[in-house]
């Protein structure tokens, strides 16, 4: 299969069950929204070593936001609800409460506790920082904690909703060289950023060090994806087409299979261009993750006649 001149490998992305939560963060202006997002989503690329995978889902205008100030919807993914329950209060307390002018709201307010969803305590835990001076206000059934801080009050939702979601949708952009592959990857991430219900948690949305399961070193459970490393072409079972000099991976986490599929499609289409030789996807043979995204199925309508 080809789209324009680009080879679409007959591969599939293998993704996994994760849990996701969404925070709405507002601040006095866009600058502080950016700082808050940067800080709270930092060290949030992969649950291989981070407590959560985090990213900006979308920006929120002042008119749309809960308090009439500019904001952003941020999503956090972890292995399970318990892991989210540990990560979120930490991140909110250390990165958002500390950030000037922020307020934090529940981005999934209709979520209740079921087998597939949970409520995660956030403000309920952080309120104790107020040392007895904290107050709360219950509006429309939702409690907001008001913690006195040096620039006024930090307003934070008592709890946030979390749902079963999916992590690890992906595709690999194989280009002639680093510049071409990176430009294509940035086009892909820009296209994906327009879509709801998904994030690309790696730096700038892009992974340069894609991994495989296992390692010759017993203590490591992941190691460099040597089949896609161009400098190892002659020394490994390379999957690289001729002429590929650099590969970048886009990893997509989302609330549903449909959301991830839409993001993969949009990202791959946007990446097609000069200097791109092929598109592939990463998997583990299909036995680890239960969500499979087959490139040829996803892109059937875009393929050359």
């Amino acid at each position, binding site marked *: 299969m080809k789209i324009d001149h680009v080879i679409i490998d007959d591969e599939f992305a293998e993704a996994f069950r994760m849990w996701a939560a969404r925070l709405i963060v*507002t601040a*006095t202006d866009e600058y502080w929204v950016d700082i808050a997002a940067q800080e709270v989503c930092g060290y949030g690329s992969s649950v291989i070593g981070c407590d959560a995978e985090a990213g900006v889902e979308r920006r929120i205008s002042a008119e749309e936001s*809960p*308090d*009439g*100030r500019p904001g952003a919807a941020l999503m956090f993914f972890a292995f399970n609800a318990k892991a989210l329950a540990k990560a979120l209060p930490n991140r909110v307390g250390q990165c958002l409460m500390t950030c000037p*002018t922020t*307020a934090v709201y529940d981005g999934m307010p209709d979520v209740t506790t079921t087998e597939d969803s949970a409520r995660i305590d956030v403000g309920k835990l952080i309120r104790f920082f107020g040392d007895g001076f904290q*107050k709360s*206000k*219950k*509006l*429309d059934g939702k409690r*907001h904690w*008001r913690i006195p801080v040096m*620039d*006024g*009050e930090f*307003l934070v939702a008592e709890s946030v909703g979390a749902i079963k979601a999916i992590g690890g949708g992906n595709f690999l952009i194989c280009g002639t060289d680093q510049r071409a592959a990176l430009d294509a990857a940035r086009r892909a991430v820009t296209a994906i950023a327009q879509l709801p219900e998904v994030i690309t948690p790696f730096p700038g949305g892009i992974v340069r060090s894609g991994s495989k399961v296992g390692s010759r070193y017993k203590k490591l459970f992941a190691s460099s994806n040597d089949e896609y490393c161009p400098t190892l072409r002659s020394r490994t079972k390379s999957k690289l087409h001729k002429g590929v000099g650099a590969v970048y991976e886009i990893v997509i986490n989302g609330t549903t299979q449909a959301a991830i599929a839409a993001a993969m499609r949009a990202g791959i289409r946007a990446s097609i261009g000069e200097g791109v030789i092929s598109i592939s996807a990463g998997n583990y043979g299909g036995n680890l993750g239960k969500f499979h995204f087959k490139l040829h199925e996803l892109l059937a309508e875009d393929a050359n006649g």
Partner: protein
Amino acid sequence: MSGYTLTWRASNTAAPTDGSTLRPDTLGSLDAATLAQHPVNACASASTSATLGDLFNITGAPGARLTLRNAPPLNGLGTRMKSGELIIEGNAGGELGASMAGGLIRVTGSAGHRAGAPAVGSKRGMTGGDIVIHGNAGDFTGMRMRRGCIAIAGTCGKSPGFRMIAGTIIVGAGALDHPGLEMRRGTIISLEAGAEIATSGRFAEDGVFDTSAVVVLRLLLRRMARLGLPVDRAKLELGRRYRLYSGDRMELNKGEIWQPTAYPA
């Protein structure tokens, strides 16, 4: 939202004093015939209580909204209601929404004393829901309220929030005469810059703040706009600065009174 409309019969000569059984959550599910037979307590100058059908023309169908039209100011409307909407086209008497737990009461005219206060036999006033009064309210509005919101577009009488436990009272106009007297927690907001707030030293001034520094004010102001509180739009502007008074210093000292400073030019 659908529901019944009860229109006061012009031919009525006697008015009941107690409207406390008029609640949308209990009456709204009845069929019209049963509704018409529903007794109304303590008719002022009759030896027996009347029925709704005696006093009102009943139109509409079962639903979550109950509208009273052209009735005299009945006391205790919406007492202990838990859900639904009670719309009073006209004035309401005293004890409006006494010990209510949820839903919305809207009064297009004014309300009497002790809106949101405890019902007979209760220690606590309202514990949830909203009361929106388009006109003025009487004395002791929000007395011993525990939660919920009372929003008044006009003025209110003496001691709004007297012995308030928590919740929110918003007053659109006029001075506040001993607001929050003996309040434990809760929020009272005056929307009128420059109006006198007489607290007799039981509250201390903590300073002036942007609403971006105390974001809950923005949430409350936006909520008032959504609830359709009929005040000048400028009074619900998010860009105003507010002065904070904390007290009652003779009680828990966790209550707050907010008043805007002059609107920035």
